[in-house]
């Protein structure tokens, strides 16, 4: 039986090409894998290989012919009498016209599925957060984080901490104090200074079912590892059709520090919040640091947990109960108010609360929302607040362009257009690398007075 050899496509966009030359002549015996011909386009050259055994009975298109359309029969191979399987006919159709119709090819048609409502934002309220009425202890954020890690390591043998200086040094910012002593070197692992390597190692361990907590000394250094965080950790569950999850926490201080200049001072919130497949958390209070870190460690997904060097030393009443959890994906009303909504996360919550105090004395009632989680984003809580106050100021330490405030502005257009009594106002870090000089540094970072001024502006007062 005869099989036609069709003009192949070198790429999805190729429609025609040139038969550069034939390497077999009519009458030659051909075997699987033999190169029959070379074809060319303006971009590339490719060999046409025989898939079936037999004899090259006929060359339909002579060499040198240009503009040969894809799927045109270019030669005929006849069987040599043995095991020319029926498969040959089904795949390389004998009539050569049975080319895949465009309607059937996956890339020819892009069915537009009905998107779930606002997939970018969480429309479903996160698990209700019960009010905690148990025992608390006043401790620093640094201690709250340590307690969260220790409790989860006691609870789940798969949890381990890995990073630079986490063990013997007790943490570059003293977050992991005492963990080496309690859990030993198997579960509290000092690494060499190789962020990409140990982040990727953590991802592999996560794929294998462990629960790594990868500490970056600061998130500035995680830029060395961002390929592993985005390409390996956040995308694999999707790319594997749900087979390969990566339960991992990437944590460390984010945002500015004091007088360390541009390479050590940057907010990565919007970078990570941009990416599906990740959860991104940036808490402020001690209870939220503890409860959200515990939730992050238990979460089956990769979680980027953004801390802040200038918050580590703040003290709060923190729940003692080892089952105290704060759900990821839920913002918190840090201070109720009526006339203007102020959103903030991480250290900026502190400044927003101070601004609200000052606004109070000026007769303006501000509602402060601590976003806590940036992905999935609690759009519902923000929208509900603005539908009450009709004004919003979005505060963040990071740069303005495509920042969290920009996302909130978009949300306001989509969800609160008819409720707004003033344009959305953003208070952000200035659009410059962070300077070292004390006066310039202060100018570059949002201050309480900037928030107060912005709130007055949207209130026209």
């Amino acid at each position, binding site marked *: 039986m005869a099989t036609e050899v069709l003009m192949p496509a070198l790429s999805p966009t190729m429609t025609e090409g040139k038969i550069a030359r034939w390497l077999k002549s009519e009458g030659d015996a051909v075997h699987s894998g033999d190169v029959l011909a070379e074809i060319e386009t303006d971009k590339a050259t490719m060999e046409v290989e025989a898939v079936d055994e037999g004899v090259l009975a006929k060359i339909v298109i002579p060499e040198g012919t240009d503009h040969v359309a894809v799927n045109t029969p270019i030669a005929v191979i006849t069987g040599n009498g043995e095991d020319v399987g029926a498969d040959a006919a089904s795949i390389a159709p004998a009539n050569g016209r049975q080319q895949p119709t465009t309607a059937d090819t996956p890339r020819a048609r892009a069915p537009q599925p009905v998107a779930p409502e606002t997939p970018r934002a969480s429309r479903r309220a996160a698990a209700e957060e019960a009010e905690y009425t148990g025992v608390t202890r006043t401790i620093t954020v640094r201690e709250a984080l340590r307690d969260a890690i220790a409790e989860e390591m006691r609870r789940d043998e798969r949890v381990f901490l890995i990073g630079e200086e986490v063990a013997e040094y007790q943490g570059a910012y003293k977050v992991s104090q005492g963990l080496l002593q309690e859990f030993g070197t198997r579960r509290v692992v000092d690494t060499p200074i190789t962020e990409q390597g140990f982040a990727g190692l953590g*991802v592999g361990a996560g794929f294998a079912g462990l629960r790594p907590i990868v500490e970056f000394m600061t998130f500035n250094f995680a830029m060395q590892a961002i390929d592993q965080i985005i390409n390996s950790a956040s995308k694999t569950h999707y790319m594997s059709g749900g087979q390969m999850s990566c339960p991992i926490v990437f944590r460390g201080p984010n945002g500015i520090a004091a007088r360390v200049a541009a390479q050590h001072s940057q907010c990565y919130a919007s970078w990570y919040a941009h990416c599906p497949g990740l959860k991104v958390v940036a808490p402020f209070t001690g209870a939220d640091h503890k409860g959200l870190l515990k939730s992050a460690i238990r979460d089956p997904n990769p979680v980027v947990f953004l801390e802040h060097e200038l918050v580590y030393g703040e003290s709060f009443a923190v729940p003692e109960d080892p089952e105290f959890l704060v759900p990821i994906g839920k913002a918190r009303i840090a201070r109720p108010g009526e006339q203007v909504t102020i959103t903030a996360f991480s250290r900026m919550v502190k400044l927003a609360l101070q601004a609200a105090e000052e606004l109070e004395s000026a007769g303006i009632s501000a509602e402060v929302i601590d976003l806590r989680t940036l992905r999935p984003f609690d759009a519902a809580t923000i929208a509900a607040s603005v539908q009450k106050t009709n004004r919003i100021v979005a505060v963040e330490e990071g740069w303005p362009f495509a920042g969290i405030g920009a996302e909130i502005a978009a949300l306001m257009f989509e969800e609160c257009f008819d409720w707004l009594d003033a344009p959305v106002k953003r208070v952000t870090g200035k659009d410059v690398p962070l300077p070292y000089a004390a006066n310039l540094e202060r100018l570059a970072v949002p201050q309480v007075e900037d928030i107060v001024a912005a709130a007055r502006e949207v209130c026209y007062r």
Partner: protein
Amino acid sequence: MATTRKGRPVGVAELDASPKELLGFYRDMLLIRRFEERAGQMYGMGLIGGFCHLYIGQEAVVVGMQAALKEGDTVVTSYRDHGHMLACGMDPKGVMSELTGRRTGYSHGKGGSMHMFSREKNFFGGHGIVGAQVPIGTGLAFAHRYRDNGLISATYLGDGAINQGQVYESFNMAALWKLPVVYVIENNRYGMGTSIDRASARTDLFHRGMAYGIPGEQVDGMNVLAVHEAGLAAAEHARSGQGPLILEMLTYRYRGHSMSDPAKYRTRDEVDRMRTEHDPIEQARQRLLEGGTDEAMLKDIEAEVRRRVAEAAQFAQDSPEPAPDELWTDVLVDA
């Protein structure tokens, strides 16, 4: 420290393998060859899109290596991964229908050629970023040691990945912590269109772990028995707690880097010479015939392999595309 078995002449090596074992290798290599030929053809027909990196020519590496592993050992590789999946025992139908982007594919059509996985077969991908699978494979080894489960990680990388910094970050940690990992460098002499001598200051890649005290060995990667023997020794080394080991497999890909390859960076003579003189499948076939295997049996194997590939190809074309709502699934695990 590093030893070499470079240059062991084909046909002279006194490598042990029972005829039955070699027959199995022959079958497995042939399955990959025929599968890849069919994938290339289907790409030409427009049934497979995007990037498609074929493994033709390198079959002995993964077949010999996988046969040296134990049940439960984990495998990770880069994007030239179809052969690895078949050698791990994944179903050709599921692999081919992932290539055609159908819902019956291993990733439900959401990964494609470069991103497939099988928890069941301990195949951890299929990774599209050159070198990124090396820390991941090292992390799989970390998990084996953490659990003290006696298993090892086979981490494959190409000569193109060997100059990536994260490879050395991984070598360092693996040696530092004596992780049970075998790094299998598939040196097919070209990183895309750049030959190894134009990309690497030293081209003998088995030395690349020397700075970390990782032993390395160079292996004739076109000879499945040589690969298997080296793989057994390397697996034993890693399993026994002595830490990582590097195997440099000298191999060759007959086809382009991906389907659209200009084929301008090497001569046809070079490709033809490798094909006619060193083909791993032909070598195995000759050895089997010399050892008295009935030619009819080889023909039966060929027919059986063709049937499986044809079935896979048909299945991959007949299967439906993913349902539109699959667009939104598997982004996150439901917590």
